[in-house]
């Protein structure tokens, strides 16, 4: 992978302006599905920022993962509405099926399970989002139908 060019292209989309680093990291994250070390180094180099600064941002914000993630991302909403309606059971069920806890990735790199605080569809709680598709009114049984190892 040619990080230098990929990142150059991403940076070029933004005006030369202070403060765009988070937006750039969002796009880098979108491109690689996580923030690879080499890419972060490259961002720092091209923006003439200290590497430490780029890391402090990459680690502060929850939207960023520094670990390689699975092909399919499962987000389990742990917002209040979902919690009250049994999000815990959904999490446990996913753990049963996939053998990984929230934040983990299956060894075959197929699935990554993440917990998020509210995806904004609280009326359909509990909610999980599998690769950007929302699934509402989840039940453990429904999880088993949607996700198979």
């Amino acid at each position: 992978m040619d990080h230098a060019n990929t990142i150059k292209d991403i940076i070029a989309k933004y005006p030369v302006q202070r403060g765009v680093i988070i937006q750039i990291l969002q796009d880098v994250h979108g491109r690689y599905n996580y923030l690879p070390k080499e890419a972060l180094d490259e961002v720092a180099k091209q923006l003439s920022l200290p590497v430490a600064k780029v890391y402090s941002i990459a680690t502060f914000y929850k939207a960023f993962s520094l670990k390689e993630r699975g092909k399919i991302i499962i987000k389990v909403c742990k917002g209040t509405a979902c919690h009250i309606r049994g999000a815990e059971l959904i999490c446990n069920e996913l753990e049963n099926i996939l053998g990984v806890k929230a934040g983990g990735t299956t060894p075959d790199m197929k699935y990554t399970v993440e917990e998020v605080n509210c995806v904004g569809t609280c009326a359909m709680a509990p909610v999980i989002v599998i690769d950007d598709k929302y699934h509402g009114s989840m039940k453990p049984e429904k999880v088993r139908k949607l996700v198979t190892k």
Partner: protein
Amino acid sequence: MRFSNTKDLGTRIESAKAARQKVKRRLLVCAGTGCIANGSLEIADALQKELDARGVKLNVELSLKKTGCHGFCEHGPLVTFHPEEIFYQRVNAKDAAEIVEKTVLKGEVIDRLLYTDPTTKQKVTKYFDIPFYAKQQRVVLANCGQIDPAAIDDYFAVGGYSALKKVLEEKNPEGVISAVEEAGLRGRGGGGFTTGKKWRICRGQTSDKKYLICNGDEGDPGAFMDRSIMEGDPHAVLEGMMIGAYAIGANEGVIYVRHEYPLAVKHLEKAIADARACGILGENILGSNFSFDVSISRGGGAFVCGEETALLNSVMGETGEPRPRPPYPAVEGLWGKPTIINNVETLANVPTIINKGAKWFNGLGFKNSHGTKVFSLVGKVRNTGLVEVPMGATLRDIIFGIGGGILNDRPFKAVQTGGPSGGCIPASALDLPIDYETLTENGSMMGSGGMIVMDDRTCMVDVAKYFIKFLMGESCGKCVPCREGLRQMSYILENITEGKGKPEDIERIRELSVGILNGSLCALGQTAVNPVLSTLKYFENEYHAHIKDHKCPGGVCKPLITYGITDKCTGCTVCARACPVNCISGEKKKLHLIDQKKCTKCGACFSSCRFDAIEVK
């Protein structure tokens, strides 16, 4: 189409209105995040095909539109047919042919797709006859679900940008501020600060540059009104921003949107591009000497970034840590320049205030809270969704009137308002009017409008633990009392929910709360103890039940509960099939039994049983 003056814009608004009136029938498909999740885009495609196949001419007499969120997501996908206002819910792509055949072509109502009122068990045909909508007063949400958010013409057609026009033609900045002040608009993002006053402070600053930021971080987990407004009526947010910017003298704006809201970002981007193309955004707006442009900043997923000074840091590409105030952002904000930060809903109210007048707005509401407020009614309530009511409505009006009462007819226990900074309100306070002050006096707060309903199967200690853990994870770590105090608090609560609590824990919680409250810099830490203190205030007995009797009255805390099957069991075998560890045995049509040794207390049997035969003790 680029308008070089306000007159051209006015002409366009009028022609768009006329065009909308000419379209006699409208088939609206909700395309908010919730309905899309349930397949509404497929339904829109299917309807389009069916219409084409039958040669029904679109646009002239009938238009098919994808609208923004109605806020009734639980019943989605939603399809409405105007002018008859026929309201279909839980529609499937397979229903498309029938809808076109019967409803569009013959005006017949399809019974099966109608909403059934859970209280009266009657089918309801019309949108505004459904108690959920009938009892609301939609001002901010008026356009959500009615217009296509991706079409600027749709916004014109409902009088959009006429407030901007009026402001540019008739009002100087001072006049705008006076109107907003006179209206009594207060911030909808949490603090409830008077918007006009804040604007006046910023206007009074001399600076070569000022900024206006729309706070769309919507961090309260359980609230989604800002998402719905940004998704369903993005131009209203822009128009509010423009009027605000004109008032304070800003020429640059930023909308800070949380990264979990991709559709909101998409619709806002489209709205910005369209407004620019029309000459409504950019240099010399509508030929005036007012210039203003807007960019979008996607948040990084940190709750604390909703706090205004943390948000500023985040927009400037720093980690989102709050800083001490003063200086307030209105004096020293983005890049050190005077900056106004307003919530999405606050800004979306502004065009209406200009159009309908400050008096009208001021007349709505209660005491010092004016206008309406959108609440996100969720949790254990029958009708979940977005509810907009005048300030001063009671919790009972909302939960029982609009919400239809508690799910499965269980008893009401509490309602949590104000998000992680708010508190739990018990049944005894159901008849209090909702305004900023009353909620605060009762140990909660307005916050952004989250309203989470809890029944007897909710554990109040678990709720307190939930919020503390949430805030512990979201503390930026700058202040020791917030960072470490919340960790200690979470540890104590964890122990209590595991049956390992000690009687003196209650005192320790109270002492710790004082420390966290006084030693924290920002409101995250200062209000973090509200969920704990309010549950202690109203539900101390539940804490004692966990500590002394090792029981969880709500049946939630795993180490303290057991699942059992009662004689209501019909032997349907559903639970046995649902159990992931196969620990339920029993023959068909005979009473089933749980092997307690193997049971992991996952609750799958409980949620699967249709005969209410599984009990938790």
